């Protein structure tokens, strides 16, 4: 496998020749920041296109085809439209919080995005509590949504925000439990180590039954975290017009919109990293020839392939099931997913202690 840290360390060495140590690190940080924002925007655009095409296919349509080949330029047209739209200031809103809310959402999303290892050595934030940090920053978004609903001075927005708050805080628990299950098996919270230990087999296969249960629970809870699919109560077009972002227009709305789509990618990429080996190619222990062929496929391709496959699965779920009621959502979480998660965690703990895994 190509180790990307060769490139980064050579860039660092080259910069250190001309600049002082502190200045070199500053320049690198700026470059990384620009790179991650650019990647963030590109993934948002890909996700919006994918959502349209996949949704169309599930509804027996063909999706956008008019603008450009296969409707590809539709996205560019949408981006331009979003950028040049007026940002309307609501007269009786809490202006500071109203303007702050989209940035809180996007900051949480970008920070979570920075944790994901894209290829070997191509990781931005990688330290020994990586998984914990990921869960912490990904739940910052709920503050932004609550702020948006509160500051809009609109009943629908506030109801949407409160629904979102109760839903996301509840499902945080299931995500935590299912991720804890994997951490118990892996024995580490550092993303690079979790990926590295999957070189002999993905954790989904290594942890057999409890890992599969944790994977399914994670997918359900992650869908709820993204306010998507059958759990789109905070937005609930038919009930709340657009929920917490009813009063937002122009690029402020665009930030919510982009954050929603990239959050979907982030939770899928996280599941791909933790359960399906991230950038690690598909390895079967014993078949060395097969493993070597798999190694020729670059890690980034594996990472994005797995992530977008999981994105597709989540879209499949979204376009299949109708929206749940509030009480049904909380019932599903507290009466089913949390007990299952707790039992599953104890099973995994037993498996890890007695070595009942591969």
């Amino acid at each position: 496998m190509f180790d990307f840290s060769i490139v980064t360390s050579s860039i660092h060495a080259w910069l250190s020749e001309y600049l002082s140590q502190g200045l070199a690190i500053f320049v690198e940080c700026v470059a990384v920041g620009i790179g991650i924002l650019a990647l963030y925007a590109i993934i948002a655009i890909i996700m919006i296109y994918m959502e349209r095409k996949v949704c169309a296919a599930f509804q027996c349509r063909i999706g956008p085809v008019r603008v450009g080949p296969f409707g590809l330029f539709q996205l560019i047209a949408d981006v331009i439209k979003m950028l040049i739209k007026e940002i309307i200031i609501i007269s009786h809103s809490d202006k500071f919080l109203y303007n702050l809310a989209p940035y809180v959402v996007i900051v949480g999303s970008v920070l979570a995005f920075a944790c994901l290892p894209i290829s070997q050595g191509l990781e931005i934030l990688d330290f020994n509590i990586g998984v914990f940090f990921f869960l912490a920053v990904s739940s910052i978004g709920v503050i932004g949504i609550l702020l948006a609903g509160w500051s809009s001075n609109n009943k629908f927005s506030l109801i949407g925000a409160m629904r979102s708050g109760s839903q996301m805080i509840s499902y945080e628990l299931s995500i935590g439990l299912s991720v804890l299950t994997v951490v118990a098996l892996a024995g580490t919270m550092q993303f690079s180590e979790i990926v590295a230990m999957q070189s002999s087999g993905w954790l989904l296969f290594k942890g057999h039954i409890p890992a599969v249960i944790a994977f399914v629970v994670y997918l359900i809870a992650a869908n709820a975290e993204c306010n998507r699919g059958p759990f789109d109560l905070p937005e609930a077009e038919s009930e709340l017009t657009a929920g917490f972002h009813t009063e937002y227009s122009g690029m402020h709305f665009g930030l919510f919109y982009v954050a929603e789509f990239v959050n979907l990618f982030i939770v899928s990429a996280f599941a791909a990293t933790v359960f399906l080996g991230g950038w690690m190619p598909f390895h079967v222990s014993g078949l060395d020839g097969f493993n070597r062929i798999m190694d020729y496929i670059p890690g980034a391709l594996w990472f994005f392939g797995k992530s977008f496959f999981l994105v597709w699965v989540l879209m499949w779920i979204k376009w299949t099931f109708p929206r749940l009621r509030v009480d049904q959502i909380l019932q599903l979480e507290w009466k089913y997913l949390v007990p299952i998660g707790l039992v599953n965690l104890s099973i995994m703990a037993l498996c890890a202690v007695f070595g009942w895994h591969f």
Partner: protein
Amino acid sequence: MENKKTYLGKIASAIESLATGMGITGKEFFTPKVTECYPENRDTLYIFDRFKGVLEMPHDENGNSKCIACGMCQTVCPNDAIVVDSEMVEDEASGKKKKQLVKYEYDLGSCMYCNLCVEICPTDAIRFNTGFENAVFDRSLLNMTLHVAKAGTAKKEETSVLADKPEALEKKEKPDQK
């Protein structure tokens, strides 16, 4: 009722029903789509046979139609969109008197595509084709005469009204004419 199920039974039935739903949509995802990209595929456009576009009277290669000028279509038409002109002629061979079609006028603008004329026709002389591009610049262009044999009317694949009405295009030049 649902409440009689045990906790685990509920989970099992939930998984089963969710999997059924996922199966149906999953199949739909891979089903070829039936959407017609209309202006681009105008040459290969498929319109289902039962679509009622424009009334037409098929003629055979000698220019004869099956119409016996009975006028039932004119009588049954709710909107008076059809006017049948006929005359009595004597058949030379048998000497019997017989009705013959002189003019068959059809106003597409008044037609509501109820299909009554086609259903009542005793000889199946008229039918609806699948042409739907009926937009014209003047109402008078929607008045058609069906008793004259036109090239291509024997086939059912006709899609354009204007294409087989060159005289209608000429009329467009003087819209005052009524």
